[in-house]
């Protein structure tokens, strides 16, 4: 069951909400609706589901309604129509008291400009969510300290937000959100106010934390690089509408419309980088020397489910899967050539990144990068996305 389920959620700013909604139903654009009804459609019939443990990125340019959408989800802004289910409970229908309970227990929010209380210390800021729940001083201090340790600020308890750098302040914002131990984190452009280097550190840190926390994260951003880097799935918004939802690869490979295409085009890395620049050193076995046992052992060591096979001159011969090697070992097959699959997805070293998407998308195994038939390296799926998102590991020698 999805932990967040948003159904047909709309927000109209202005007086003539009914007329505006009808126009929206009729498929008019935001501008047309504004002209005809005098009301602005902030969010236009958004529907999506987020699974537990997923990082779901909502991305769009300013004015696309993404910040409104995230505020509709915890009802900082009242929805005009539609339903918001958190854990099966419909927030849209809740009274104030129930809503408060859900906000306290299930939803936490991280703000673009941090939203820290300047008159409270770091510890007191982190405690805030627990304090309003009436949790005892001792317990909330302990939980807040744990959360601050988690983000690496365990020694700044008695400082005030004004004494900390932007990156550190946002860590406090994150710690405050985590101290409640919510199921869902709403992050509204959480890293947009930080300078690019710090932003990247924070993205990495969030991903590291997510490894252990497994929270459901709804992340709002206007930065495609950021979306590609951290999102398990991405929803693209324009003029209050969600135009496409998909994995980073889906969006890059199959842009749903011109708008998405244009957006994706801006990621010029896809055209600049080549296969050679993002490939990794391959694990191989030599078809002339090794048998299934060596192949299995190497796969186990490197944590792979398949391994490439080369000959003495490093010419690519094929690939062996762990299953096949295991089978061969049981059946006392000694020669790799009996179990090898010759058909390996292969690209030349000069293939641009842009052309890798389609190949890697359909391939269950890593791509082999070759030059005149000789194996140079491999490319795993993550490396393509990572390279697009500007992750540092680009091979300079190419």
């Amino acid at each position, binding site marked *: 069951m999805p932990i967040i389920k948003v159904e047909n959620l709309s927000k109209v700013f202005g007086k003539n909400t009914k007329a505006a909604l009808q126009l929206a139903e009729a498929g008019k654009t935001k501008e047309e609706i504004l002209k005809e009804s005098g009301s602005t459609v902030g969010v236009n019939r958004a529907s999506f589901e987020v699974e537990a443990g997923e990082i779901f990125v909502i991305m769009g340019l300013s004015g696309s309604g993404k910040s409104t959408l995230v*505020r509709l989800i*915890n009802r*900082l802004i009242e929805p005009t129509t539609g339903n918001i289910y958190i854990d099966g409970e419909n927030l849209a229908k809740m009274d104030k008291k129930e809503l*408060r*309970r*859900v*906000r*306290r227990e299930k*939803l*936490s*929010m991280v*703000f*673009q*400009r*941090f*939203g*820290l*209380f*300047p*008159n409270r210390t770091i510890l007191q800021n982190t405690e*805030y*969510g627990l*304090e*309003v*729940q009436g949790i005892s001083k001792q317990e909330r201090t302990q939980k807040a300290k744990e959360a601050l340790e988690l983000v690496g600020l365990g020694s700044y308890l008695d400082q*005030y937000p*004004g004494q900390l750098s932007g990156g550190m302040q946002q860590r406090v914002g994150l710690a*405050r959100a985590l101290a*409640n131990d919510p199921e869902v984190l*709403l992050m509204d452009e959480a890293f947009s106010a930080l300078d690019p280097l710090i932003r990247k550190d924070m993205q990495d840190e969030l991903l590291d934390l997510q490894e252990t926390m497994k929270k459901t994260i709804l992340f709002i951003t206007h930065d495609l690089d950021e979306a590609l880097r951290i999102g398990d799935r991405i929803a693209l918004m324009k003029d209050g509408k969600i135009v496409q939802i998909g994995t980073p690869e889906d969006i890059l490979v199959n842009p749903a419309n011109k708008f998405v295409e244009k957006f994706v085009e801006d990621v010029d890395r896809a055209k600049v980088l080549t296969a050679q620049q993002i490939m990794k050193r391959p694990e191989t076995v030599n078809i002339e020397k090794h048998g299934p046992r060596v192949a299995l052992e190497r796969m186990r060591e490197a944590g792979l489910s398949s391994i490439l096979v080369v000959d003495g001159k490093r010419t690519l011969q094929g690939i062996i899967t762990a299953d096949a090697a295991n089978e061969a070992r049981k059946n006392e097959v000694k020669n790799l050539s009996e179990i090898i699959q010759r058909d390996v997805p292969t690209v030349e070293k000069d293939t641009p990144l842009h052309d890798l998407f389609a190949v890697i998308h359909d391939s269950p195994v890593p791509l082999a990068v070759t030059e005149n038939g000789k194996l140079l390296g491999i490319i795993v799926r993550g490396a393509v996305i990572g390279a697009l998102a500007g992750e540092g590991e680009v091979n300079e020698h190419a």
Partner: protein
Amino acid sequence: MLDFMENVKEIPVGDWMTDFVDWLTNTFAFLFDPIKDGLASFMSIITQGLAAIPPVIFILLVAILAFFMTGKKFGLAVFSIIGLLFIWNQGLWDHLIETFTLVLIASIICIIIGIPIGILMAKSKVAETIITPILDFMQTMPAFVYLIPAVAFFSIGVVPGIFASLIFATPPTVRFTNLGIRQVSDELVEAADAFGSTGPQKLFKVELPMAKYTIMAGVNQTVMLALSMVVIASMIGAPGLGREVLASLQRAQVGPGFVAGLCIFVLAIIIDRFTQNIYKDKSK
């Protein structure tokens, strides 16, 4: 056009007001009388208490307080000593205490009334729409006009003086409280809401602490306005330095009038600097 106006009878607003105040006086006499007696005796206790402190000790206490409140600077402390010694020297010490009590009590009541009204205005658009013109009215209506109903309700003495001060001096506290709360950044209010604060939690944990410097600026204004009412209130029998000024005016005595005025000035500076320093944002 002119003919037309001649044919229209004068609207008896003045008569209505007279009737209204009469009605209030008669109807709420059971309220006004105890308030008057209670407040008057309460104030005389305060006045006597303060007057019982020997001036030397009083001046020293003020100076010490000034020294620490201004962040261990000598300026205000020295001014307080010289100024208060001057007032003592002029034989106006008792009047000073009376005036101080009047200002103190009036200000406290203003704050007690003003801050909740300011909060109400900040929270409700409707309340703001209704109260704003009332505040404008209170501030622009000449202060002398309040004296008439004040006397009707509370006869003469210190209590009607306080009443008139209240009307004149409350608006800044109300306005600044409203402003201060409305100025709290949206994101902080959202943060308070997003973590599930109740209304009072949001108010006391976030909005009032964030607004306190603005509110204190309003309180400072209120105190200064209350002090400025001292002379006017003396026309309906409020005691203190104002009465000295009024007496000098009536007898056309330039000298004593100037001295009493100077004493009010000294008191004003001391009170102003004190209230400014109570909640000065030390981090800025």
